């Protein structure tokens, strides 16, 4: 492999993120300073974003053999970086209020972002696995970051064991695919697949194992068991990270891989993904109804949302890609905003995760309640929000590809989903009876409020005027 002809500017985002995390680590060695590290993190993320906007948006190239930097990748990288920025903005106040040593968190955050970024641009099994492991290993620590909370530890361990397990599946799957096709490069696999109209057994087995690994990371049914526990135990900003950034990277990888090897030619694979999609939509939404813990509700809801995205993924084509991109934007904004509300309402002792914590929120903190309402309506896909346009896009792409059954399942399951979103909203508007001893006493930080307001404005803006975002996506994709 030759690396000498790589233009350093092309891989700048990765270098930027690595430098920032090293800088953060060194600064901890000298003196712990939360604000300093926070500023380093946010500026480096901003820097990457500006780079992407001004440089990468009109540069398409490959970094052989590992990376492909194309419009789709650049767009989602930008989205991931901005989401990481939002998560870190929400994290500052959250960790400031807690006694733990909070500086290392940002190193992990930067590294996890890097991992997700690598997933997005990889076109080779090696870079795929590398990205996945950087992401996962950072997440193990992030999930268990609040060491003093039992649930946090439990969640961290659970995530560690299951993620390691799924990595093993993935690795074995890669090995089998390699043994069949003799290539680890996506394009190499594609040319092998193109010459084999029937699916040879080792390749089939390899694909199945890959699906298991990917499915675990995305938390789709039947690989979703970890999601509720991990979401519940993880600190709210970390849960936001898991729900958005870590899944987004994987979705893009999946779309890219499937697209390149033209997996649509194998009905059995399509059927498997369709089954996963249907099961995720139904089971996610139905199980969410029974929860009383908001974080668990969101975990199940994100399972369902992954199922929705699968509809566009299976629809394929340009419209499918656009729909996935749009939906990712809408979903990222919304889920980060929702966890942001949870983070802002949490106090020193525990996160604001019980449904009861939201009782009468509208009368106590009308602004936060309005933000939360906007988020939940967007998750439910009600007009005036980005979530609605996103869902519309998904349905359109599904209908365009004649996937009527999937589209109908999407619609029916979103109706089921309405129930629990509305239940939280109803809770917030309920009247307060007396003062509750157990009520949380959060300290509100301006920075969180501003972030949340910006997110809700964006959600409503994209809901009312989606054309701008659609144009932007098309600019990047084509």
């Amino acid at each position, binding site marked *: 492999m030759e690396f000498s002809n790589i233009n350093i500017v092309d891989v700048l985002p990765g270098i930027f993120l690595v430098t920032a995390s090293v800088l953060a680590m060194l600064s901890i060695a000298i003196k712990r300073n939360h604000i300093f590290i926070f500023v380093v993190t946010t500026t480096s993320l901003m820097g990457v974003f500006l780079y992407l906007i001004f440089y990468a948006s009109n540069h398409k190239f490959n970094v052989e053999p590992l990376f492909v930097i194309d419009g789709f990748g650049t767009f989602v990288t930008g989205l991931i970086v901005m989401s990481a920025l939002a998560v870190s903005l929400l994290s500052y106040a959250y960790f400031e209020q807690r006694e733990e040593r909070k500086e290392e968190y940002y190193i992990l955050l930067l590294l996890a972002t890097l991992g997700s970024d690598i997933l997005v641009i990889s076109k080779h099994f090696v870079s795929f696995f590398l990205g996945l492991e950087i992401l996962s290993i950072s997440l193990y620590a992030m999930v268990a970051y609040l060491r003093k909370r039992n649930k946090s530890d439990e969640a961290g361990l659970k995530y560690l064991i299951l993620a390691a397990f799924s990595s093993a599946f993935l690795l074995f799957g890669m090995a089998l695919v390699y043994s069949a096709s003799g290539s680890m490069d996506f394009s190499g696999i594609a040319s092998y697949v193109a010459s084999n109209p029937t699916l040879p057994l080792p390749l089939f087995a390899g694909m199945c194992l890959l699906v298991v690994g990917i499915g675990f990371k995305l938390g789709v049914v039947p690989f979703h068991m970890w999601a509720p526990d991990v979401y519940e135990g993880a600190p709210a900003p970390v849960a936001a990270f898991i729900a958005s950034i870590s899944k987004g990277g994987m979705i893009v990888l999946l779309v890219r891989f499937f697209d390149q090897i033209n997996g649509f030619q194998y009905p059995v694979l399509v059927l498997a993904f369709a089954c996963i999609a249907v099961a995720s939509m139904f089971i996610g939404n139905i199980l969410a109804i029974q929860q009383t813990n908001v974080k668990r509700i969101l975990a199940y809801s994100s399972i369902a949302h992954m199922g929705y995205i699968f509809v566009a993924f299976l629809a394929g084509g340009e419209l499918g890609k656009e729909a996935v991109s749009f939906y990712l934007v809408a979903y990222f904004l919304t889920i980060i905003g929702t966890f942001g509300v949870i983070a802002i309402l949490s106090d020193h002792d525990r996160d604001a995760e019980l449904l009861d914590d939201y009782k009468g929120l509208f009368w106590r903190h009308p602004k936060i309640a309005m933000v939360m309402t906007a988020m939940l*309506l967007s998750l439910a896909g*009600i*007009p*005036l929000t980005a979530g*609605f346009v996103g869902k*519309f896009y998904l*349905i*359109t792409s599904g*209908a*365009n590809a004649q996937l009527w059954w999937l*589209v*109908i399942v999407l*619609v029916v399951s*979103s*109706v089921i989903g*309405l*129930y629990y979103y*509305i*239940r939280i909203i*109803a809770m917030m*508007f*309920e009247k307060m009876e007396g003062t509750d001893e157990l009520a949380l006493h959060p300290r509100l930080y301006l920075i969180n409020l501003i972030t949340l307001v910006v997110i809700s404005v964006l959600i409503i803006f994209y809901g009312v005027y*989606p*054309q701008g975002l*659609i*144009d932007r996506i*098309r600019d990047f994709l084509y």
Partner: protein
Amino acid sequence: MILVAFIAILMTGGIIAWIAASWSHSASRWISLVTLLVDFSLAISVWMNSSGLEWIEKFSVPWVPDFGISFSLALDGLSLLMLVLTFFLGIFGVLVSWNEIQERVGFFHFNLLWVLAGISGVFLTMDLFLFYFFWEVMLIPMYFLIGIWGHENKRYAAFKFFIFTQASGLLMLLAILGLYFVHKSNSGTGTFDYFQLLGTQIPLGTSRWLMLGFLAAFIVKLPVVPFHTWLPDAHSQAPTAGSLILAGLLLKTGAYGLIRFVVPLFPEASAELAPWAMLLGVVGILYGASLAFAQTDLKRLVAYTSVSHMGFVILGVFAFNQLAMQGVVMQMITHAISTGALFAIAGVLYERIHTRDILAMGGFWGKAPFMGVVTLIFVMASLGLPGLGNFVAEFLTLIGSWQANPMLTIFAAIGIVTATAYSLRIMQKVFLGKWQSEKAMPDLSLREKLIFIPLIVTIIWLGLFPQTVINTVKPMIDKQFKIEQPTSIQNNNGVQ
């Protein structure tokens, strides 16, 4: 531009009313009232100046051009009437809440004006995507109106209302998308524009499915038995203004959708469906009436009368002739006013005696004769007494549907008799009989008289001079039947 203004005024008014409530509750009320009065007078002036053209006003700007979505509004006779009705009832919505709503006044008026804005949007838009958009926009504020300011069982009612309408709305969205793709594959351009979609050639099999999607949304909203179960709960639990708007306006959006979308877009499929739809209408008329007779909760009783009255709407729409259609339009307006007024009376009574149970009432005539007279008038309207608007409406509908299906019309006509039974029961239980309660029963206040007198004037005016209304909507109806003359009417007349 004026069409955008109608909606924009309501939305801005809503926001200002919300903000204003932090200084003073009555400021919020006055702002809402003025907002609605401005819109109402604008609508009236448009009505006065309207010529006999089919389309009085059109407005369109691209919204999401990539999908062929435009912000397209247009006003014809039907829309105009519905719009006037919306603002007219909106005014009373504010007035009836004047004393009833004492907490979160700003947010209440915000929701009230936004639900009206959504309804106006539904009546005005000529882009199917935008239609769905407004269809949902009117849902959320209504959910809050019921869920926050409603009565004892409000959460359940609000939930049920939301899920019923949302689920059926999503089916409509699927149908809209289906239509979009059919049109796209026929003509090569994807558009949600009503006028372009109007002549789409759809294979009959597909057309049936697409029509069912639209129909789902509209018959749930209307409501048609057996999809009516959300209605009694929502109506009885909502605050007075909420019930007024639900019965007066939201149900009419369902009827409007049938007239505007289902029949013109899918003429053949709806001709096929017509006998069944009419049957459902008749079942609704009789079933609603008999359930209304059995209720003891005054608001529930009135809610079931809506089910019964709305049966006439679906009967008339699917009779496919001009008379029936004129009757339907009249029915939409007169039912809005008479039922709205009955809900307002239920609200007025609730403010005084804090119950809706008619068994706990009785003998109020002696204490509150003015209220008694008002109620009598609207009860008479509801049972279809000649001279009041509802008579004209039901009479026209029945004449029209007789031409299409005499058998069903006979049963529908029985509905008028049953209407007499439940309507008189209201009078008997509430105003006649023995005075039981020890509570004070003051007669209507000036504000309340100001609510009811214009409503009485209107219902009498509609009964005596229905021609003004019919003339307004005539160009639209004529147009519709000119298009369909060769196919559906004759087909349908054959089905007996």
